[in-house]
């Protein structure tokens, strides 16, 4: 009897660790493959495009007559369709807006739901806007809070002290004033400060990138901490530590640093910048490629990144700090906080 009990107990205890697994195999509660978004592509204007597509379907191609109606988006919503609209001071709008003409909002209005404008939009100071998508140009006054995102086909002009939420994108020029906070920007170009683009081109016809013709890497490793002012290098360079590129240096190739990468004023880089540490770009720099840091990117005034006919990216994992009078053709992204200083 005792032996039987011990035997049964042994069997039970032996299988005990497997019991939850057996239950899971039978029930298949978590048996589906891990989800991969098969249709996902990186599109800096994804929000605007997908929202407009949803709204287009819900409003029969934006042809609905003016007035309120119910629409089915991700859930059932109230939608107001209007020709043109002038939203008065401190008005609160609690429903979706589809403005088929232009939209003007006065000071301190609050839009608690998404807004689509087929024409131009002018958002007054101190407004709070959940989402704004526009087919025309957008002007945003000072101290506007964008809760989620902004996208426009036309030019976007943003006043000082605005918070741009997750994303602000434009099919044309995106202009940001001082003290604007952001996480992602896209514009052709993105301009900060006085809104005057700097003359281009800034490189002579560039040499072809150095292609690897042997198994040896086409870049060189330099252990110096400083590249002297005025240096001209015609190769990609990897620095295993912090490095400072001196005033007026010209480098034709990619630069990578395993530490901090500092560009003094008027440096020209015909290539990409990569760094594990901060990237600090001095005034008047000209960079034709991407700027990518695992920490913070600081961009000083009169800097130009990328060219009018290309789209490049500035990525600073922790932060991107851009001074006034900077021009970037393409995309800016940070997981932390971006700011125009």
């Amino acid at each position, binding site marked *: 009897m005792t032996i039987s009990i011990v035997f049964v107990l042994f069997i039970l205890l032996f299988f005990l660790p497997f019991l939850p697994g057996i239950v899971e195999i039978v029930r298949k509660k*978590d048996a589906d493959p891990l*989800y991969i978004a098969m249709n996902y592509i990186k599109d800096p204007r994804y929000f605007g495009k997908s929202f407009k597509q949803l709204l287009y379907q819900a409003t029969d191609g934006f042809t609905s007559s003016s007035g309120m109606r119910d629409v089915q988006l991700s859930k059932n919503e109230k939608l107001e369709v209007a020709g043109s609209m002038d939203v008065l001071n401190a008005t609160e709008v609690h429903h979706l807006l589809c403005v088929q003409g232009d939209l003007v909002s006065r000071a301190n209005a609050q839009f608690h739901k998404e807004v689509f404008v087929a024409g131009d939009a002018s958002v007054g100071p101190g407004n709070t806007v959940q989402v704004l998508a526009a087919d025309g140009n957008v002007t945003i006054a000072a101290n506007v809070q964008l809760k989620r995102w902004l996208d426009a086909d036309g030019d976007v002009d943003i006043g000082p002290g605005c918070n741009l939420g997750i*994303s602000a994108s434009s099919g044309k020029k995106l202009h940001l004033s001082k003290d604007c906070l952001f996480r992602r920007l896209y514009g052709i170009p993105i301009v900060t400060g006085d809104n005057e683009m700097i003359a281009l081109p800034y490189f002579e016809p560039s040499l072809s990138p150095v292609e690897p013709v042997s*198994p040896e890497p086409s870049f060189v490793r330099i252990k110096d901490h400083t590249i002297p002012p005025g240096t001209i290098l015609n190769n990609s360079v990897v620095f295993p530590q912090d490095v400072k590129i001196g005033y007026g240096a010209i480098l034709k190739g990619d630069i990578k640093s395993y530490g901090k990468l500092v560009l003094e004023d008027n440096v020209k880089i015909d290539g990409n910048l990569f760094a594990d540490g901060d990237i600090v770009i001095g005034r008047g720099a000209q960079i034709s490629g*991407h700027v990518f840091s695992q920490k913070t990117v600081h961009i000083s005034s009169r800097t130009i990144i990328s060219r009018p006919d290309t*789209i490049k990216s500035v990525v600073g994992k922790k932060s991107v700090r851009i001074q006034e009078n900077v021009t970037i053709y393409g*995309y800016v992204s940070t997981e932390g906080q971006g700011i125009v200083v």
Partner: protein
Amino acid sequence: MEMVVLILKIYLVFTVVVLVGYSIRHFVFTLNRLFFEQRIYYQDIIDSELKSITILIPMHNEEKVARQILDLLVVSAYPYENVGTDAKRILDLLVDADYPHEKLEIIPINDFSSDETRIILDEYAANYPFIKPLHRYEGQRGKPAALNEGMKMAKGEIIIVFDADYLPPRGILKDIAVSFNDPEVGAVMGRVVPVNTRTNLLTRLLDLERTGGYQVDQQARYNMKLIPQYGGTVGGFRKDVVTALGSFDTNILAEDTELTFRLLMKGWKVIYANRAECYEEAPETWNVRSRQIRRWSRGHNQVMFRYLWPLIVSSKLSKKEKFDGLLLLFVYAIPLVLLLALLDSLALFFLGEMQIVAGVFAILFVGAYNTFGNFAPFYQIGIASLLDGATSRVLLLPMLIFNYFFNTWFIAIGFFEAVIDKITGRSATWIKTKRFRKKDGNIIPMRKWPPSSADKKIEVTES
């Protein structure tokens, strides 16, 4: 006899030390993923000047899967439920494909197929000018030889390789290609996710292994600037560099691991792209799995014999890279060490000589011994599942004990085969992993794509 017992005891202690080392390695990787700064990959870079790419897809009797991977690569904008059914719409939608067509070339390599693979590839080539099949019926068979011939044809700067059973999502080409803006990157590896998890216990356990191996192991090695491994599929490399290095060695079964170390020896880096996820079909029978793991072991150990000394004396690697490289090279030798240690401990037990250490050290010894092999990756797989948002699948963790003993045995056999390869200089024969998909069966819509809440999820991925 005393000398024999002493040797047995020393071997056991040696094993415990090795196992503790590997356990610490797994533990450090896990902690790194949980609590430390994560290095971001380059997927946030948007670039209008993408490099030209050639996709190579080695295929040996792949009629069951050939259409799906080609459809997915060609028609990246196309809704999956209609793939392969509407040729006109396919051509229309090519305009929206997520890689510039003038910079995209697809070379499916028909490697001695005797089924309908050839016909399928020719059919696609007739419809799409950028699909240029390569039919091989002469020379050496096998993936490395096929890739070498494919590279001779390829016009792209970057080679991206997929196995034929893979299901690439729409954005993966850009995600992989963009990393080559970094001047040091010689190769990049994406993440492999089994698609047929619901099939049986084996596929579910393999899913757990993959989760731990990629979500924690590879990403932690990327975070810590160690040695992420190029895995031969869902990854890419610079064509000119690999060509100049002599292309793939056709006598090495793990051509991917071999490439990883060859690039490292020359000063290039291999990086990991956790974001570049792609479905694969995991083996569905233990027999097929045994052949796969045996081949991996044989190939990996061939690489270990070749690169052990060059790695130690390399001037291109940091000390921590060398250390990680050594642990990586020995990964497929350790199961044999464990197997021998098990026999060793049995011998010592029956000889009445198991009292190797005393006091509190005895507890540590037992603890360390029990931490080996199967148990070491437990926390790695558990945390990986947590990071993936998986829920009930972690309940299967204890069942990995079956995989552990299974793998130990076949990896040990693979090790011996590699030893014989080394001694005799014989060349290895490539054995393809059997596919289980029904012919032209579309396995992606096994659930609704995207699932009901997926619109939200896509938005989250965007943000």
